[in-house]
Structure formats: C-alpha cells, structure tokens
C-alpha cells in the first residue's frame, strides 16, 4: 500500500514537468521528425505536405553548400574551445582557491561576463574588435602560426586568439562550479601528502584531479552544449535562414536540425567515452 502511495505522490510532484515534456518536447520532436520527412510548402490553403522520405536528409549533405563547411569549422572550433575553456576555468578556480587577498573582488570580475554577456552585447563588442587581447601583436602570431602549422589549423588557432576574450567569457559558471568543489576537498589530504613528501605538483595530479574528475566531465558537457546551442553559432543561424527560405522551407530546416543534433550527440558520446569510469577489478 505504501508503495502505491509513493508512486502517486511521486507522479503528482513531477506532473507539471511530465506534461511539459510530453507536450513541449516529445510531441514537437515527433512533429519535427515528420516535417523532415516531407517537403513543406506554404500555400493559400495552409501548409502542404509532400512525402519526401529521406530526401531532405540527403540534400542536407549533398546539396547544401554551407552545411558541411560550417559543420567542419564548428567541430574543429569546439574541439579546441571546449578544452581551452575548461582548463582555463580550472586554472582560475585553483588560483582563487589559494589564500589570496581580494578573493571576492576577483570572483566578482570573473563571474561578471555571465551577467552582461548576452547575444547582442557580444556581437556589438565583436564588431568593435574589443574581444581580442589588446597588446598582443596579431601579425606576428599569425606569421608564426602559419609557419608552424598547416593553413586550416593555423586558421583555427588564429581564430582562437582573435576571440579569446569571448571564449574566456564563457567560463563564468564553470569557474564557480570548480571553485565550489575545490573548497570541499579535505585539507587533511594535502597535509598528509605533504608529510609523506609529496610536492604540490604531485598533489595536483594525485589528489585534486581525481577528486574533481566528475565535475570536469560536467563542465565539459555544459560547455559543449552551451557552445552548440548559442545564438552566435553559424549552423544555428544557417538553420534559421533555411527555415524562412522560399525554396527550402521547414522540412529541409528540420532535417538539418536533426543532422546537427546527431553530430552534437556524437560529440557528447566521445566525451563520455573518454571519461568513462574504468571498472575497478575486485581483488
């Protein structure tokens, strides 16, 4: 009897979410999949569906000139930016976790971008060129990069330098999360390690990193998703443009969105695979 009551209450509490999920996530997902299988035309009699099978999906890959190009650029960018953001957040969190003065002030500064950095503000700043590190000499960096790496990779790296501040601005939440978990590590652990003759360097690799490993994964996922879904993303704008395109329409845009989603899920899969818990064998 108690089991039943618990079931009832459980469902009662999650009911709002359940309704929302079914009506605003699951149903639109199915619908969007249906759209992607059709050619949709807006006619005076309303929307007209012509069944097209997987043609839209094929067209995304074979006919669209920009999709593959943008996707490659996005994938490369992401594979560089995500680690940069997370490592950077970890470094800052560790610096702040030291016994420094004005800790509150620094925290306030590093978290500030989360408050002010919205789409239009960032695009205004990028227009002004205010997002590159000012005193760095861009030309020298470019020429060095071009000499060292193949062109496509040098392009990605110079992109990184040009937008370094926007990239760093994405790390506010990650810094807070790292800081919160760093503060929870028991100081006795470090003390014991120090007595046994461990250096700070060893302490970092043997104590800090293993403890915060789950959070690193969470931060990686958060960063990836927030980069992938941000309004500055060219693919998202491409999908948006196709949606209101006369010859392409919703069907094509939906197919593109689906393909994009598959790519994102693949990337997440790679992350999870790299971070999976290795099964400890029982002795």
């Amino acid at each position, binding site marked *: 009897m108690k089991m039943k009551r618990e079931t009832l*209450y459980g469902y009662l509490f999650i009911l709002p979410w359940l309704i929302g999920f079914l009506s605003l996530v699951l149903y639109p*997902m199915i619908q969007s999949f249906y759209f992607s299988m059709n050619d949709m035309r807006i006619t005076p009699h309303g929307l007209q569906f012509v069944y097209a099978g997987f043609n839209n999906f094929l067209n995304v890959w074979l006919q669209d000139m920009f999709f593959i190009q943008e996707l490659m650029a996005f994938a490369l960018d992401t594979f560089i930016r995500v680690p940069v953001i997370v490592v950077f957040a970890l470094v800052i969190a560790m610096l702040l976790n030291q016994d420094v003065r004005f800790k509150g002030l620094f925290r306030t500064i590093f978290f500030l971008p989360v*408050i*002010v950095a919205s789409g239009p503000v960032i695009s205004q700043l990028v227009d002004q060129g205010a997002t590159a590190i000012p005193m760095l000499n861009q030309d020298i960096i470019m020429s060095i990069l071009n000499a060292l790496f193949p062109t496509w990779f040098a392009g990605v790296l110079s992109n990184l330098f040009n937008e370094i501040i926007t990239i760093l601005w994405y790390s506010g939440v990650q810094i807070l999360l790292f800081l919160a978990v760093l503060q929870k590590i028991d100081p006795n652990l470090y003390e014991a390690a120090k007595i046994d003759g461990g250096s700070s360097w060893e302490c970092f690799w043997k104590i800090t990193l293993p403890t915060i490993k789950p959070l690193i994964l969470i931060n990686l996922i958060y960063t990836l998703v927030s980069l992938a879904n941000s309004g500055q993303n060219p693919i998202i704008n491409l999908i948006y443009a196709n*949606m209101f395109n006369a010859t392409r329409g919703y069907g094509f845009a939906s197919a593109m969105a689906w393909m994009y989603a598959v790519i994102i899920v693949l990337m997440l899969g790679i992350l999870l695979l790299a971070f999976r818990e290795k099964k400890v064998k029982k002795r």
Partner: protein
Amino acid sequence: MATKQATRLMNVLRNDQMDAKEKLHLVRLKLHHILFGFNDRKGLLLKLVIYMLLLGIGFVYLYPILYMFITSMKSLNDLLDMAINWIPSSFYTQNYQQAYSVLNIRPALLGSIQIALFPTILQVVVSATVGYGFARFNFPLKRLWFGLMLFSFIIPPQILMMPTYRLFSELGLTGSLSAFTVPAGLGQGLNSTIFILIFYQFFKQTPKSLYEAAEVDGANQLVSFFRIAIPMAVPAFIVAFLFSFVWYWNETYLTTLYLTSSSTDITTILIQLQQFETNYQSLYPTTEASPNRINEGIKMAGTVISILPLLATYFFLQRYFVESVDNTGITGE
C-alpha cells in the same frame, strides 16, 4: 613582517662570532626561504606569480567592458583622433543622450522585467516541486523520466523551435508573455534541467529522518513539502531565482522569435539593442554631410545603457551569485 626579517638579517650580519662563510650561508638560506617558501608558507615568487596571473586575467576579462565605457564617452573628434586611446579629451555625454532616445528605455525596461520576472517565478516554483518529486519518492519509470529530463537539456532548440512556434501560434500565445510563462510553468523554461537538478541535489541531501518524523506527527506529504522542504531550501531558491532571472533577461533567441515576428507591444532592452542601428537611422535620418551619422561611440553608449540595469543589480547582489553555488551542493558530495 618584512622589516622584522630585515632586522633579523642585520643582526646576523653584525654578529662578530661568525665568520664570513657562515654568514653568507645563513643569508642565502634566508633569502631562499623568502623567495621560494618554507613548509606551508608560500614563497614571495609564487605569490607574485599568482597575483600577476590574477591581475592579468582580470584585466583581460574587464577589457571589453572598459573599452565599451571609454568609447561611449568619446566624441566624434576623439574617435577619429588616433592619439586618443584611453582618456577622452572631454567629458562627453551626447552619445548617451542620443542612445537613450533611440532605445525606448521605458517600455523596453518594463518588457525586460516582465519577461524575466514572471517566467522565473514559475520556473523556480515548478523546478522545486519536480526536483522534490525526483529526490524524495520512488516510483516506477523514475529513472526513465530522469534520463529524459537530462536528455532534454542537450536537444538543440532548433529541432523543437518550428513545431513549438506553430503550436503556440495556433493557441494564440505568440506575441504575449504567455509564450514564456507557459513553458516555464510546465518545467520547460530556459535551462530548466539545471534548476531541477539543483533542487534535486539539494533535497537529496536533506536527511530523510526529518520527513519521517513529520509523518509520525501526522503531516501528509504536501504539508511536509511546504513546511519542511521549502523553508530549508532557501539557498537553492536564491541561486535558482538569480540565475533564471539573468538567463531570461539575456535571452534573445526566443524573444526575437516570439515577440518581433508577430505584432505586439512588448519589447525588451536587448531587442532594442539588436535593432539599434535601424532605429537610430529612422530617428536621426542621415542627410548629406549631416553630423548625425551613427558612430562607435553611440553604439557603445547604447550597449552600456542596455547592460546597466543588470550590472547595477549584480553589484548589489554579487555575494549571492558567487557564494550561493557553494550552498546548493550542486557539485555533489
């Protein structure tokens, strides 16, 4: 402390009983301790490196904002003068006056507050309820629903955007506040997964015996939710409210979709900023050789005005932002 150490060092040097070699050795040791640290004390060099790094990164973080403020203060002459970089030649506020008149501040501010406040309230309340449900009760298919909730975070919004937009326009929700409050009330607001997770973690950590004691005293589930769980969860409520408010305030994708594509009076500051250039041109039409051309100074002034409300709020409430994350236990134990 430095002076104390210096006098100690001097004492060693003045000491006649030691020979020069011994003195040199002691001084070297002392310097080594000061520079590289000793036991738990950090050396001067390490401290220097830490502060340099923090200051440097802090400057890089603040640079765009500083740049924005300074450019917004520059008159056209200053902007064209390559020699003027950081300090404008005069205190020039004309940019702000023009930007202020272009931005439609009053309706935009009202709209922004509406769009941020009402969905946030609903979102926080619903997230707390759902998080409590997931944390406290065991029911069939719980793992499935929980997994789907996490999954809904990573679905690109574009997949859902089109059908949702059609659904909302059929229901007549577009162009009104309901386009934001309805999803928020159904637990599908902006980043709702994160908020549900925050509450889930929080309620998971509260001891079960509390609820059991309440049950023995005759409280039913609803009473123990309202009288025990909610009062305990105040830190989680604060962090959820602040983050949700900021995220809704900064949201432009959905607001553009729902508010600009259909006729409505609601507008937000960020929508105004997006349309800044076109609005400016219609308000100050450019004639041949007129001084009214839009320039960086005016654009930056508009941007400054648009971030000012949140910036001011942040400086009052920043303690809650940066410390609250520690209190919610979202990082797990």
